[in-house]
């Protein structure tokens, strides 16, 4: 069986993509759509963009922080913090678990390489890999706070108003009954909220959020960049 290419990664909302979009391409090995079937699914008041294809890794353990630093992804010292390192996001979840995700095209390979080492059979000492197959979404738009007010008991308004670009705080909370990691950040001049959701909740989370967004004049926004 050697020589068989590894099959593509499948999005946790593959089932929704299959019926709502047409055409596919691979982004970091994950099947992603080319366009929406219908423009009625679009909406800018508050938009949902799937980013599950980005390369990421998770880890914990006594040696995790040092190992991350050695890979060039040093985390910020405060609990529940994140910072941009190169083109990647390095998040510290509570005190001692870490999430690294490539934000920019240039960082995808670096993160993928680090992940390959981390998840290989030879495990670095005291470094415990956390496999992360999350549904990742970007929420943005003028009605973002209105949508959040329907789904989460945390007051996001001050966090979105002051969203930082390089480093800031992250939250672990619950939205519509599913646990999420949430990071408000400023990219260019736009405020976005990035969410990481357990993939087994993905279809429920995505379709429910889309329903709420649609009622507010929002919808799906496919990530426009052409990088793979």
């Amino acid at each position, binding site marked *: 069986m050697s020589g068989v290419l590894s099959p593509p990664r499948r999005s946790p909302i593959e089932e929704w993509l299959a019926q709502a979009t047409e055409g596919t391409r691979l982004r970091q090995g994950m099947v992603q759509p080319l366009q929406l079937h219908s423009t009625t699914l679009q909406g800018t008041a508050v938009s949902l963009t799937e980013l599950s294809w980005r390369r990421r890794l998770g880890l914990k353990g006594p040696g995790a922080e040092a190992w991350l630093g050695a890979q060039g992804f040093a985390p910020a010292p405060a*609990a*529940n913090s994140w910072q941009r390192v190169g083109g990647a996001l390095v998040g510290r*979840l*509570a*005190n001692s678990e870490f999430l690294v995700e490539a934000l920019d095209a240039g960082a995808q390979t670096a993160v993928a390489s680090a992940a390959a080492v981390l998840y290989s059979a030879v495990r670095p000492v005291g470094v415990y890999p956390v496999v992360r197959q999350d549904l990742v979404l970007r929420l943005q738009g003028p009605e973002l706070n209105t949508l959040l007010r329907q789904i989460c*008991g*945390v007051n996001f308004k001050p966090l979105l108003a002051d969203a930082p670009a390089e480093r800031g705080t992250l*939250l*672990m*909370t*619950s939205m519509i009954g599913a*646990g*999420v990691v949430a990071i408000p950040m400023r990219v260019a001049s736009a405020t976005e909220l990035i969410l990481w959701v357990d993939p087994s909740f993905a279809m429920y989370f995505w379709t429910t959020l889309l329903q709420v967004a649609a009622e507010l004049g929002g919808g799906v926004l496919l990530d426009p960049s052409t990088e793979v």
Partner: protein
Amino acid sequence: MKIMTCPINGPRLISEFAYAGELKAMPDPAQATDEQWADYVFNKNGPAGIKREWWCHTSSGVWFIAERDTSRDVIVRTYLYTTEVPRT
């Protein structure tokens, strides 16, 4: 809805937390009599007052101790287990 303050994640709705009973020392199973052991397993501290309890912030998995005054329904303070409470 009540607010509980996680020592790491800050104040959140109590629906983000799970309760896991009172903090109590386990007697040495080898030394305890059957009666002492049964008392530890089955008997709970009933009267209202200040209880020290295990609570978990489910969204993050952080475990901590909450001191609650059950006669006034007030959460007095919360703290991580390792830093303040002598381990048993």
